């Protein structure tokens, strides 16, 4: 394989003058000659069957118009993506919070019962009651200081 690659380098014009002399000696071998000939044939056949397509001068204005349009088009940057992602996350958090608040509020209230109430204020009275929400209310009134 090494001699084949050397021949390829030679054919591709990639060897200097010193190396080229070595190659010319190599080409005296019929097998090397055959390989060199096949390289030439392959290249020639490829160039003949794969012609170089191009953009004609008269097509250039249309070509440039497309490029100019693309260049002037605002680019969708990654910054936009991250802003959108942040906004979406924030919205999700708010939605989850509202949802959890609604769910908690709809739970049945725990009813409490006042088992005992006492005060050390002399002459004071204590009353308790539990409202519909289950909230226990205790109030202490000092009837001695009432003015009529």
């Amino acid at each position, binding site marked *: 394989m090494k001699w084949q690659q050397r021949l390829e380098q030679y054919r591709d014009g990639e060897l200097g003058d010193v190396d080229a002399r070595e190659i010319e000696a190599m080409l005296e071998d019929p097998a090397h000659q055959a390989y060199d000939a096949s390289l030439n044939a392959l290249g020639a056949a490829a160039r003949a*069957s*794969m012609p170089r397509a191009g953009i004609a001068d008269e097509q250039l204005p249309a070509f440039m118009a497309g490029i100019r349009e693309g*260049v002037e088009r605002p680019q969708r940057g990654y910054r936009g993506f991250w802003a959108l992602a942040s906004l979406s996350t924030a919205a999700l958090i708010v939605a989850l919070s509202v949802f959890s608040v609604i769910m908690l509020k709809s739970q049945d209230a725990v009813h409490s019962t006042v088992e005992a109430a006492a005060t050390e204020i002399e002459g004071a009275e204590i009353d308790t009651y539990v409202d519909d929400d289950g909230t226990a209310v205790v109030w202490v009134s000092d009837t001695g200081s009432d003015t009529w």
Partner: protein
Amino acid sequence: MSVALESVLLYEGSVTEPDRENRVIEADDAELVSRARTGDFAAYEALVRQYRNDVFALAYHFVRNREEAWDLSQEVFIKAHRALKRFRGDASFKTWVLRITANQCKDFLKKRRLKTVSFDGSPQAANRPSADLDPRDRAEAHELGQAIQRAVDTLPVKHRTAFVLREIEGLSYQEMAGVMNCSVGTVMSRLHHARRKLRNLLEKSGFALEGTSASKENTS
């Protein structure tokens, strides 16, 4: 006056005519790139005008369709314009834009999952045997052309790129290394494998590569 002086200063020691020409082109390109970076679209247009056929030809070799090659080429130049600030100038503008082309084509083929590409038969792409050949030779030449195109299409993208850049576009190994973003040694290896595979495929199809031409072997 100052532009002419810059061009003269690039000529160091003894250089061959092609080297001199390449250096002048590179100096001109550097100036155009510099102006294009500042928003001078006319300068960028000059670069597009200079290299549009190199880009289009390479794209066409992959997709074998003029419309798709046209779109791809425009995308390449749009991308190149956006990336101008990142162009360091260590490779020539041509090598750099061809690298973008090769990458763009690779991505395009991946998306399309093109394993074989049908010959689109458009006038500019057609393998048109010479009218000077007799009908039998013309038919044979047409058949060979189709066989070569089919064979090239079966190559892995890296090998196909190497073969096209060398045999059709005539790039040097150094330029190819720049386009394919690999070492010169890798370029040589890919090229060797591409040629070997193509030779084997053509021989299996009954085409002999000998002398300075390829011909169908008589099987009768």
